[in-house]
């Protein structure tokens, strides 16, 4: 099958949607499909062979933050050329409502179009105003995919219609087979004998942007003194970009040594970190539509303690595959962490439950579902073509074929 994938966000900037598209493309290529990804990228950025650059994204203020978007005649022309040259059986647009390549591709194409909605943002003012413009473009989408039941609900509320739920994929084995790093492990985990003797320490992992309050590091920092009071040797390992000094400001000076900042980590180190920690904590405060990091943590066999967000609850199988605590409740977080770290049997049980549940998110399952969607929409349909604007003469019935 010839598959075209449209990525709305800049390929140079790492992000959830970009990683998802990269993994999907590579998975499909491995299965023998021809895949081309159209993405905004700087000219200097080295791109994998399957990515076609749609030009540099322009930073513009949009929806309360600065977004890097592609628009204008030049981008539109590039989209049309890509569609024309590709001769795709199906195109898969990500985030079709963002005013970037996704929307341009929706405008320019006709035929089997699949779209994935990643965010579950409430409808913005701009989108309400643009609705009459947006609607005819969105109508062309033959199949909609939402990444979670929660994302599907918001999508149905704001745009009507329906969508199938296909979660984001993870290469489970990559995480499951990563080697643990002894210096990130607690003493209890390092000694192989699981004798069940409670130990005073434990390592807690956190991955995410430090300076992004939505990721919830402040709540974890508030909980940390209470955890250390009960279990004095506890260490917190933080991986992610941001100002490290600012992050520990709220912490009493003598405890700061127990927080280790690892900075940005590679995929491999992320997997090793998740393999090493005794407990992974996701204290996010909202704005999550999926929670890929929880799936990665479970793949690596890390017990998960997460905020009780709709999206997280669903990823954790309704709370069966990991533990939940009320959002932003540092006391509850501390109590749960202390209880779990002191209960090796429960931790082992969570590892087991998580590893079993996470198979559902493996690319082998998720990729097959996405291919099913492609095959459902391409059945009996013609290939994707550029949507030729009907000229004035044709509209008035004057053109001759």
């Amino acid at each position, binding site marked *: 099958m010839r598959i075209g994938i449209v990525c709305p966000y800049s390929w140079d900037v790492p992000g959830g949607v970009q990683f998802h598209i990269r993994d999907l493309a590579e998975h499909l290529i491995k299965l023998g499909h021809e895949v081309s990804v159209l993405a905004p990228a700087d000219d200097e950025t080295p791109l994998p062979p399957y990515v076609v650059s749609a030009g540099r994204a322009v930073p513009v203020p949009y929806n309360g933050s600065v977004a890097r978007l592609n628009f204008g005649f030049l981008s539109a022309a590039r989209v049309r050329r890509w569609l024309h040259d590709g001769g795709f059986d199906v195109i898969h647009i990500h985030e079709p409502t963002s005013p970037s390549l996704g929307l341009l591709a929706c405008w320019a194409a*006709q035929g089997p179009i699949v779209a994935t909605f990643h965010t579950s943002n409430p409808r913005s003012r701009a989108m309400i105003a643009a609705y009459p413009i947006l*609607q*005819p473009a969105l*109508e*062309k989408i*033959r*199949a*909609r995919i939402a990444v979670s039941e929660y994302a599907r609900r918001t999508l149905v509320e704001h745009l*009507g*219609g*329906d*969508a*199938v739920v296909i979660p984001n994929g993870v290469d489970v084995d990559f995480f499951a087979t990563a080697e643990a790093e002894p210096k990130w492990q607690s003493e209890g985990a390092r000694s192989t004998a699981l004798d069940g003797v409670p130990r005073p320490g434990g390592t807690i992992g956190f991955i995410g942007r430090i300076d992004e309050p939505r990721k919830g590091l402040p709540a974890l920092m508030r909980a940390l003194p209470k955890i250390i009071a009960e279990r004095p040797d506890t260490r917190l390992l933080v991986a992610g970009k941001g100002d490290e000094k600012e992050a520990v400001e709220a912490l009493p000076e003598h405890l700061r040594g127990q927080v280790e900042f690892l900075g940005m980590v590679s995929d491999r180190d992320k997997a090793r970190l998740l393999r090493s920690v005794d407990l992974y904590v996701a204290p996010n405060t909202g704005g999550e539509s999926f929670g890929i990091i929880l799936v990665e943590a479970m793949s690596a066999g890390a017990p998960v303690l997460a905020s009780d967000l709709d999206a997280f609850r669903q990823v954790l199988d309704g709370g069966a595959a990991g533990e939940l605590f009320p959002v932003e409740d540092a006391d509850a977080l501390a109590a749960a962490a202390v209880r779990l770290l002191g209960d090796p049997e429960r931790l082992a049980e969570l590892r087991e439950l998580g590893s*079993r*549940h996470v*198979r*559902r998110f493996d690319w082998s*399952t998720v990729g097959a*579902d996405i291919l*099913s*969607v492609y*095959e*459902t*929409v391409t*059945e*009996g*349909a013609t290939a994707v073509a550029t949507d030729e604007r*009907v000229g*004035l003469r044709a*509209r*008035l019935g004057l053109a001759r074929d």
Partner: protein
Amino acid sequence: MTTFIWVAVAVVAIGLYLSWTAGRLDRLHARIDAARAALDAQLLRRASVAQELATSGVLDPAASIVLYQSAHAARQAEDEHREVAESELSQALRAVFAEPDAVEAVLAAPGGEETVGELTQAVRRVPMARRFHNDAVRAARAVRRHRVVRWFRLAGHAPFPLAFEMDDEPPMAFTADGAAGH
């Protein structure tokens, strides 16, 4: 004279808008047709695999008869009874595969793995195809309810699109969550 020009401009603009809307509606109708064809194909595939399974002798006689009966009814159903017949096939499949032993039994039979694969694919694609179809129906209805479309009869003689409502819940053992278990 200026009034005349303005009227002419307005008439042309309205004409273009109407023509554009008619084109949009036409595309939506084509989308419904394609989605409906895909849904039909998936339903037929599902009924065929179910019927094959029922006549294979792998399942116990009672289950075989139940499955055969509903698969046959689903394939033969007239348009008005189609939704009910297909829902009954979904229920029959769920009943037959409620216990995990049934899946194991089919897997153990020669060619069983293939059959389970086909059935898994069919029962999971039916809900997909149905959602895509009903989504297309909703989009077309939204445009057809528009005043301009009704006044100028832009929909022509195309029948008012109807959603396909049925119970398409697959047996637990064949869902992505259930399949991860074994």
